């Protein structure tokens, strides 16, 4: 009987291991597939953990609670009905049950672990997982995206954003409010435009090429503005505020600066 119990334990452990491995592999594939989908629609890709975790839990529970004797009997006709009967009567001690257990132990030796592994399906799953990984790398490097759901959500949640594309009256209204005593910082646009998630994006704007390099993140260096300014600025500043200099901005300058920030967000 001890030999029989050991054999049953070994079978249970082996089959449970196979079920765990298969379920994990399938969960990884689900994770990768959902990750790609979320990446393409602009949502947080790590949310893919949720469905893959749910799948893992549900299928693992189902697999482990299924009778291992039934799984073995499905593949080995010789053990049909015998293994199940012997397992169900494992606590019974009589000559007939003993002979059944001995018979089952001798026939279990013919059971091969490889018979429970579908190598074709396993190879296919591994291949799919590898391809999905490459797809994720490809999409990330080239920044491919179908549409950005998060931006849609942002617009829905902030309908009165100062950065929105309203008509000219909106611009005038905001300029008027700024000129009527609003903070001069308002003309620089929404601070969230220059932030990525919770992290403020400190970028260096190359004035010549007008390119934004994500990789070159460093502290903003103070620059001496010695470039030639447009004539309109000198003209207007001469006409409207000779004493302001660069400390104060007239409405026209404010409009200019606001247009600048608006165009950078487009």
């Amino acid at each position, binding site marked *: 009987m001890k030999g029989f119990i050991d054999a049953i334990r070994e079978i249970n452990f082996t089959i449970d291991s196979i079920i765990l491995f298969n379920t994990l592999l399938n969960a990884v594939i689900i994770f990768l597939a959902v990750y790609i989908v979320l990446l393409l629609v602009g949502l947080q890709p790590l949310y893919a953990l949720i469905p893959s975790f749910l799948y893992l839990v549900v299928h693992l529970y189902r697999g482990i609670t299924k009778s291992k004797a039934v799984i073995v009997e499905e593949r080995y006709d010789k053990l049909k*009905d*015998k293994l*199940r*009967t*012997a397992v*169900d*009567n494992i606590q*019974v001690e*009589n*000559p*007939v*049950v003993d*002979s*059944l257990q001995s*018979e089952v132990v001798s026939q279990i030796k013919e059971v091969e672990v490889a018979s429970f592994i579908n190598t074709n399906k396993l190879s296919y799953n591994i291949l799919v997982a590898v391809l999905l990984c490459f797809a994720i790398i490809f999409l990330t490097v080239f920044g491919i995206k179908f549409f950005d759901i998060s931006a849609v959500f942002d617009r829905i949640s902030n309908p009165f954003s100062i950065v929105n594309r309203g008509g000219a009256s909106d611009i005038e209204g905001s300029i008027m409010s700024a000129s009527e005593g609003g903070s001069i910082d308002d003309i620089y646009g929404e601070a969230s435009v220059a932030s990525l998630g919770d992290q403020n994006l400190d970028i260096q704007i190359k004035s010549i090429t007008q390119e934004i390099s994500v990789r070159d993140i460093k502290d903003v260096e103070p620059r001496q503005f010695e470039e030639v300014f447009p004539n309109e600025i000198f003209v207007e500043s001469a006409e409207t505020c000779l004493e302001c200099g660069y400390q104060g901005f007239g409405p026209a300058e404010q409009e200019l600066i606001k247009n600048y920030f608006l165009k950078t967000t487009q």
Partner: protein
Amino acid sequence: MTHYKQVFDAMIKEVNKVVIGQDKVVEQIIAAMLCDSNVLLEGYPGVAKTMMVRTIAQLMDLSFSRIQSTPDLMPSDVTGTYIINESKGKREFEFQPGPVFANIVLADEINRATPKTQSALLEAMQEKQVTSGNTTYELELPFFVLATQNPIEQEGTYPLPEAQLDRFLFKIKVGYPSFDDEIKIVDKYTSVIREHKLKPMFSKHHLISLQGITRQVPIANDIRERAVKIIAATRVNKEIIQYGASPRASINIILAAKARALINGRNHVTLEDIREMAFPVLRHRIILNFEAERKGMTTDDAVLRILEHVK
């Protein structure tokens, strides 16, 4: 366990020398004996019911008696009675055992006996004892009653009530032999007058130990549940069945399946055993409703339908 199969195969082969073409019936009678229970044989006259039982009794070295039931048969004719014995000038009552005091009792045409006589026999079946007057006499074990019924000539009979039919493990239908078998029977019994002397294959003590081994045969949980579901289905299927089988049928079907497994040399019960034993176990335990009878359905048809529906 294969040894048991060889023994029972040899026994059936020996019976086949006397009774041809009834192997399945013989197997079911042996199964009933392994279950330590009784059998109701239903068959037309002349299909070797009596000869079959007598032959099995010889092979198992069991004492055999036959009771021919008639309407005037009294209970004391079955159980025994007190007679006055005169010896040495003294007269005293002495109990004279009746034909029930045998290992195998064949009650022919039990439905012809009066209910009172039937009940005397049925008490012996159930309790394995006989009460005469104020004294109870134990019957020698093993004890089996094989009762027979004629499916025709039902006039003037006293059909066994359902409560008493339930006490029989099996109701076995003894049919006619096939054409080839009948040719062999004709050849055997028209050529010479033979007396079939069969050697016992095992003793009554072996039979008693085999009865214990039968109950030790293990059964899987799902097969056990399927068997009980089959019996329970007879109680809920009101389309064709008016009255279903009792929990005694659940016990009997599993016991019979274990006996069949042992006869076939297996140390476990299979679903096939349950399906095969469902017919003799349920045949006499379910009562069809009027609609089913109107359609000409038999109890076997009802059992088959239940087996198909229960998963």
